[in-house]
């Protein structure tokens, strides 16, 4: 059966910044948000003042501002990636157990994370490749995955070798079970729900082409 696709919204796959821009646009006004280290951090560049988003950094702050430059660099004011940042009016500081209670207690609306793999049921693998000689390091990944109301993943759809990172079952060690609600990739946005995986929109390809790349049953958004 051929689906007449009406969900292709871009002629080309999205670049990292375009993807960050899309995630930023989807964050509901007034949300409390934690952006993971790496690609998710780019999202902060596209949040508008009008959105009134409060950023959380797990080392102990709400109301984090942009990266600090020049005289604003202060060794006592860093983010979870240990990068010097700034504070915005209305910021607050708290100790590590309170900071993780904000996360683990379900108070954050959204966290945005990178991933090695996401499964059809929303399992997340993003902390360990499973390589026997790798030194394991987990940080706050498991707390973020389990605690936020919505977990958005940003990643390329395919590995360098061309395998889909959206999979039936994760083969990498898990970070969290059934926690991911949305996956933003360069080729498509996927919504993960109790009724399966829906393709919300595609970039530079059709729904049918996405279905060929991803080894699980997908539905196009209505």
């Amino acid at each position, binding site marked *: 059966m051929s689906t007449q696709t009406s969900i292709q919204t871009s002629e080309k796959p999205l670049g990292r910044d375009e993807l960050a821009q899309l995630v930023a646009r989807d964050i509901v006004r007034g949300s409390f948000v934690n952006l993971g280290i790496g690609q998710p951090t780019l999202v902060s560049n596209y949040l508008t003042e009008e959105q009134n988003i409060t950023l959380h*950094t*797990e*080392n*102990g*702050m709400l109301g984090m501002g942009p990266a600090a430059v020049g005289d604003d660099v*202060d*060794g*006592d*004011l*860093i*983010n979870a990636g*240990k990068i010097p940042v700034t*504070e915005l009016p209305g910021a607050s*500081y*708290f*100790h*590590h*157990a309170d*900071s*993780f*209670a904000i*996360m*683990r207690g379900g108070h954050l609306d959204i966290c945005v994370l990178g991933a090695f793999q996401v499964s059809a049921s929303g*399992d997340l693998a993003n902390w*360990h490749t499973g390589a026997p*000689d*790798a*030194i*394991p*390091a*987990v*940080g*706050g*990944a*498991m*707390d973020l995955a*389990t*605690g936020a109301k919505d977990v958005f993943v940003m990643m390329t759809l395919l590995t360098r070798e061309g395998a889909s990172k959206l999979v039936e079952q994760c083969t990498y*060690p*898990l*970070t*969290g*079970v059934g926690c991911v609600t949305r996956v933003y990739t360069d080729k498509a946005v996927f919504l993960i729900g109790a009724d399966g995986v829906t393709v919300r929109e595609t970039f530079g390809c059709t729904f049918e082409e996405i279905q060929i790349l991803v080894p699980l049953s997908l539905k196009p958004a209505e």
Partner: protein
Amino acid sequence: MLNFIDTVGEAVAGIQDGSTVMIGGFGNAGQPFELIDALMDCGAKDLTLVNNNAGQGDQGLALLIKEGRVRKMICSFPRQSDSWHFDAKFRAGEIELELVPQGNLAERIRAAGAGIGGFFTPTGYGTTLAEGKETRLLDGKWQVFETPIHADVALIKALKADGKGNLVYRKTARNFGPIMAAAAKHTIVQVSEIVPTGALDPENVVTPGIYVNSVVRVDPAGSNSAAIDTEQVA
């Protein structure tokens, strides 16, 4: 019993071989570098250290690991671009690692200070870090039983202490300080400034002095010993 101590060396002198020592800080923010250096100099070995990371570069905690003084590391994120001393010891099988999700690390430390015997949390359920641990279905979520992390000693950094040992911190340098101060039997704090009792607004005290045993002032502009040398020269 609260003591104000002149030097970081005297402050850490009582730390025994085999102790569990919590060290505050996340990245460089809140790291009590001078107390860590003093722990290095005092020679204590066979230590179990609790910190978010496992040392960076060629300073502080990384040196304790390099010199073989650390038996076990309890942390959430040992692997960094410059964690070469930990990496080498770990690969050689010369250091034990207890890897703990960061929120569990914080909450297990908090639990120790609050007299809590353990708690259930969804964090880590279904992952390799929960293997072998008791699980329960609570409030519709599978949760993992986690136990408190106690310590013999905590080394932390704060901005100011008053005469009662009440502490205030600065920005994100607060991180593990308050919970480690409560979790350890003996808490040693290095501060930039000691202010008279009454000079801190009680509404703004972050760590009440009841959790603090030793306070040592470290000149924020330089190391403790350098500050003393300057005084002697003057």
